């Protein structure tokens, strides 16, 4: 592991991780957590920063709450895998300034975009805690609509087949 990685993410190696992309400057961790790999999300004026309309242009947890809510995410208790829900986690430093976000995958592991670097898959939110991003501070969830509809469709199809 590169020395910069072990300094910034002291728990990453022991938690387990895999690189899942090449480095790119096209999007950042917040965009990636929101499922967007085309933009650079940050509450700052000036191109090419993107921030959802209506969300405060301040680097505060509140601003990120509002931004995440535009994508359907609401705060929740923890990062445990929960059927039918997609979860993200916000990392903040000691001053409670947001620094990073990660998104939970279907298998319960997490995916992070490390600044202008690569995407990684890490086993737990704690994997990228450390000097660079601070601590995993607030979890959010939204109903996984696609899967919910897919399950409903499957149930409907099965019921129809059973009737026939």
């Amino acid at each position, binding site marked *: 592991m590169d020395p*910069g990685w072990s300094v910034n993410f002291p728990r990453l190696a022991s938690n387990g991780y895999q690189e899942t992309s090449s480095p790119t*400057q*096209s999007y950042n*961790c917040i965009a990636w957590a929101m499922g967007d790999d085309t933009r650079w999300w*940050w509450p700052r004026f000036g*191109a090419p920063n993107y921030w959802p309309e209506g969300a405060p242009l301040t*680097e505060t947890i509140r601003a990120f709450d509002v931004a995440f809510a535009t994508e359907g995410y609401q705060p929740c208790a923890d990062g445990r895998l929960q059927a039918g829900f997609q979860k993200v986690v916000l990392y903040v430093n000691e001053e409670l300034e947001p620094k990073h976000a990660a998104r939970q995958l279907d298998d319960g592991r997490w995916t992070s975009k490390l*600044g202008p670097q690569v995407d990684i898959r890490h086993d737990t939110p704690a994997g990228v805690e450390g000097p*660079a991003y601070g601590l995993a501070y607030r979890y959010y969830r939204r109903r996984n609509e696609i899967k919910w509809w897919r399950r409903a469709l499957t149930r409907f199809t099965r019921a129809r087949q059973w009737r026939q």
Partner: protein
Amino acid sequence: MTYQEEPIWDTYEEDGPVRCLVRLRGDWLNNVGDDYNRTPESAGSDVWLIDPSFDSLDPSALGTFRADVRADFDRLAKAWKTNTQFVSSSTELILDPSYQRIIGLGPEVVPYVLRDLIATRSHWFWALTCLVGFDVAQGSQTVQEAVDKWAVWARDMGLLVD
């Protein structure tokens, strides 16, 4: 292409000759000389004005690159990329001391910044806006779109270096 909706002609008045940069029928002119008595009314719609406080942006000066500026940029850019290799915060990216020092190198560094921007898509947008005086990429929705706009501008201005 309009960089300034309402020309602020008054601010051009200084002690010496009027210092401004105008784009007249596609040609860049600095220190408009005889034309300094123009008024916004007489200038016509084919003149675009750039913030006069950035009179240091002189395309002819940009042609005289100093070797040490290039070396300074390369060294500082490398330090910036190392310092911010995991940073997603746009604010943190531009507040890094190496990034600030690159802005401090002045307009001569613009061609090197543009070259790196086009090659790596690194976040030089703020630095370029500071150095040039206006945001060429204003309104861009994506990093690629912003890079493309700066690349077109750099080509139009003849600011691309090897």
